[in-house]
């Protein structure tokens, strides 16, 4: 087992202090400040990253618990020159105001579209089985772990819906 962690495709050694959260590790040790700290208690979703394809809150996990894992942060999804589909859609739909929650929203939505493609149900799904639909209600439920203090929700849902419908 390795004692390194891959962040956006680059291997890094794990921190010495076991108290380092994955969030503080990417922001402070690696200088990847796209991932944001809102609450540090799993309540806001600003710190959402994708670990081995699954979205999690990076504030409630220790970096040392992730040896051998592959982490994708907002910096790994796209760049200003080559944005991802969701990044483009957030710009096109004005899916933000201050932008603080946006990296978390986009990481979360990226993994969420895969969850829907896997036909994983949500609390809003009428049936637990079969194909999942991308309704506004589904998107709101599935994205409820990402709070937006500016209340850009309507445009966030529109941006996600656009990409979901295109890829469907």
């Amino acid at each position, binding site marked *: 087992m390795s004692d390194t962690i891959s962040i956006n495709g680059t291997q890094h050694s794990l921190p010495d202090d076991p108290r380092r959260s994955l969030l503080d590790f990417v922001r402070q040790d690696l200088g990847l400040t796209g991932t944001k700290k809102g609450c540090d208690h799993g309540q806001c979703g600003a710190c959402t990253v994708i670990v081995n394809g699954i979205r999690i809150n990076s504030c409630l996990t*220790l970096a040392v618990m992730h040896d051998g894992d592959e982490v994708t942060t907002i910096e790994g999804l796209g760049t200003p020159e080559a944005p991802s589909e969701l990044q483009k859609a957030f710009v096109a739909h004005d899916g933000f105001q201050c932008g603080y929650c946006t990296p978390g929203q986009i990481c979360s939505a990226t993994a969420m579209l895969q969850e829907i493609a896997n036909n994983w*149900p949500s609390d809003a799904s009428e049936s637990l089985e079969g194909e999942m639909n991308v309704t506004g209600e589904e998107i709101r439920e*599935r994205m*409820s772990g990402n709070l937006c203090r500016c209340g850009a929700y309507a445009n966030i849902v529109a941006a996600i819906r656009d990409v979901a419908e295109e890829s469907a």
Partner: protein
Amino acid sequence: MRPFSYTKARVIEDARQITADESAMAIAGGTNLLDLMKLQVETPHKLADINRIGFDEIKKTADGGLSIGALATNTATAVHPRVRSDYPVLARAILSGATQQLRNKATNGGNLCQRTRCFYFTNIDQPCNKREPGSGCGAIDGIAKLHAVLGASDQCIATYPGDMAVALSALDAQVHIATAGGSERTVPVRDFHCLPGDTPWRDNVLEDGEIITAITLPAPVGGTQIYRKVRERSSYAFALVSIAAIVEMKDGLFSRADLAFGGLAHKPWHDLRIAEALIGQPPTAQTFDKAADILLEIARGYGENDFKIPLARRTLHAVLEHAAEEAA
């Protein structure tokens, strides 16, 4: 966060050995423990990371039931094809809790052991008999909206906050525990959590060095299965009152009514007398009231949470009415 030493357990023996020490704790998803360590509510000197010890499988048992690994995530459990088709009340209960990000990390063992959301418990400047035995209870005569109306004591009126265990209680699931000595014991989930009594610091029956390995579900029980969670907003909030129900009807009468209740007590509440009162009865308001009378016989509010008593009654009405319609 206080300093601690960290060990990655490779096998369950490592985990048992490390956590046998009173000042050590196991960490699984970390979504509850790290939250509380940041607040210095939990201050373990040693952490045993149990994520790589296995026990994350979901597989059929010899009697046709399902064994759900303690280290399987809440998400893996809720999306498992057999859980969705045979135990929908469990899938629904899990999906109603927390958020997708949290459920992706949260494990089934950690979910059972999650601690109360009492505001005094999570604030180290406040008195709390659960966190600091003998310091008093801030919630009695304080902010007690989330607190218990059933089975509380004059030492502690906290509630167990989880959803999954409420469904497990209705399903009469069993919790499998590896003991510190290396043997195994099994505890029905209905007996896993404790009432506060005069030992409010004790949430459940686990002893130092014990690790939950799996939860087993009985062979598919069928029936109409419902998880109804009443909360202050429609997503991402803990239950004020929740009900897990498995109901069957025969000739217009209840023939099965396994019910468990969340948000009301220090444990998922289960009272066999409720099923006894419902079976053989028609789904009328009178029947529902009789069931609610039994549920709430010893109910007592603490001011701010008085509303839970009528809310539990109305939620029970709604669930039974809905279940009877579906099951007919």
